């Protein structure tokens, strides 16, 4: 049983596709799923795979909350992760993983009304994914507010592109050159602002029973009430 729990989760990870997981692998993993989850052996082991990609960072800006205008307010900025802030390297790496995690779970606002009408289950999954991203993002903002009392916190996600070796040979560039950074979707968010535009809730009783989406719709609506 243990060896099955070791072997099948990464297999399930690999056999996951756009229409879901392989039915045969789903059957195999069912008896050991919770066992492997608790033992933390339900991993995919996809280190730097399928391709080494760009890094993802969180940029935070803290300004004096008393100032009404963001433009006039004195602002301090910090990047997460940052070798100057986090030491030793293990601490830096944990913060780096946090920024990558926020990017990994990113899901755009929505779902669009058309999806709600056409596929309620898919719309519910969309809402849950979005709610997860919002919850983690809000938790990060709340943490920064706690560390910077009285300040207004805004964060945004950045992508740090990797230059190819051909680019590097033809036009040498510092790896931290500003032109390699890209601001990602969802505008900078400040606590107390509600930027979500949530599709209206259809009859919640129609949603699949295993998905607790009623609470999510409410959470999305009252996003400003941070947890």
């Amino acid at each position: 049983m243990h060896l099955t729990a070791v072997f099948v989760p990464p297999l399930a990870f690999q056999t996951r596709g756009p229409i879901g997981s392989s039915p045969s692998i789903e059957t195999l993993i069912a008896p050991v799923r919770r066992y492997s989850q608790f033992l933390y052996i339900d991993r995919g082991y996809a280190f730097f795979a399928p391709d080494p990609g760009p890094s993802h960072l969180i940029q935070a800006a803290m300004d004096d909350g008393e100032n009404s205008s963001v433009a006039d307010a004195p602002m301090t900025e910090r990047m997460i992760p940052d070798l100057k802030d986090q030491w030793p390297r293990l601490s830096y790496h944990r913060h780096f993983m946090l920024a990558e995690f926020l990017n990994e779970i990113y899901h755009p606002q929505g779902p669009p009304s058309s999806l709600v009408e056409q596929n309620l289950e898919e719309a519910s999954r969309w809402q849950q994914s979005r709610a997860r991203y919002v919850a983690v993002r809000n938790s990060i903002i709340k943490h920064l507010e706690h560390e910077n009392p009285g300040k207004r916190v805004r964060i945004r996600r950045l992508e740090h592109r990797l230059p190819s070796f051909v680019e590097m040979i033809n036009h040498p560039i510092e790896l931290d050159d500003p032109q390699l950074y890209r601001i990602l979707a969802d505008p900078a968010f400040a606590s107390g602002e509600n930027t979500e535009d949530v599709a209206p809730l259809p009859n919640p009783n129609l949603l699949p029973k295993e998905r607790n989406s009623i609470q999510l719709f409410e959470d999305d609506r009252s996003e400003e009430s941070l947890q």
Partner: protein
Amino acid sequence: MIQVLSAAVKKGTTDWLRDSVAAWDRFWFSPRYPQVLGILRIATGLMLLYCHCVLASELFRFLGDHAWINNATAVQLHDGSFGVADAGWSYLWYIESPTVLVAHHVVTILITAAFAAGMVTRLTAPAAWFLQLMYLHRLTGALFGLDQIVTYLTMYLMLTPAGSCYSVDAWLRRTFADKCSSRRKLAWLFPEATPSVAANVGTRLFQIHLCVIYLFGGLSKARGELWWDGTATWFAVANYEYQSLDMTWIGEYPRIFSSLTHVTLFWEISYAALIWPRLTRPIVLLIALAVHGGIAICMGMVTFGTMMIIANLVFIEPHWLLASPSDE
């Protein structure tokens, strides 16, 4: 003629089955010396201790109600609020008091230190593993490969008499030899460093788990393009956030970095097969040392790279570490 052929097939099948069962028996149930496990225990325990000490320096950034991912969100990431619930449970989700968190962390550090030192290892190993699991399920979002490998090693080591050598337990057993030999509970608590089936089962389980990690690590890479066109190593060294040693000069030598890319991919995929034969094992282990050493030195993951090298020691034969041939 048919009868002769039938008898030959029957005998061949019977022999094959008997040999297979014997090989299975040898693989799993041959007694094994615990010396390698003792070294793995020290290294794993120290790495786990280091992780907990680093976490101690920023405990409230990662645990409690004001953490990067606060308690409420940590619960929601596992309880099905955002999809399907999982079994990754931790009591640390419910601890709000800073005093309790600090006290809990001090206890964790003490138990982990005892595990590393081999002090009452029969009890401190499972305790260290369980506490580590509780932290893992609380630190969702801030984990990486190091956390996986150090946890797996601790899990398998707790199944073995890993505290029977290079340990405080071994010293206690020598000191109280008479009592240990006459009392069963003490004999179990402070085991002798003699060959045991438990040492072999724990070793085999971790060896297989390591093979699974490499196999799927390799297969995951094989689904990409950059591991095939040879540029993956370049993109790994060109990642500023991972960089701890500037290796971008390698960009001027495409044949070198593409060779490194291909060797890494094929080594990782073939590891599960080539690590077992005595002929290929040293080569596989040398490449492991080079790959993980490179990750440790150049890519800012000294802890992960070191831990993977340590993990590969599980394929070292324990008799190499015995003091003299008479020990066998």
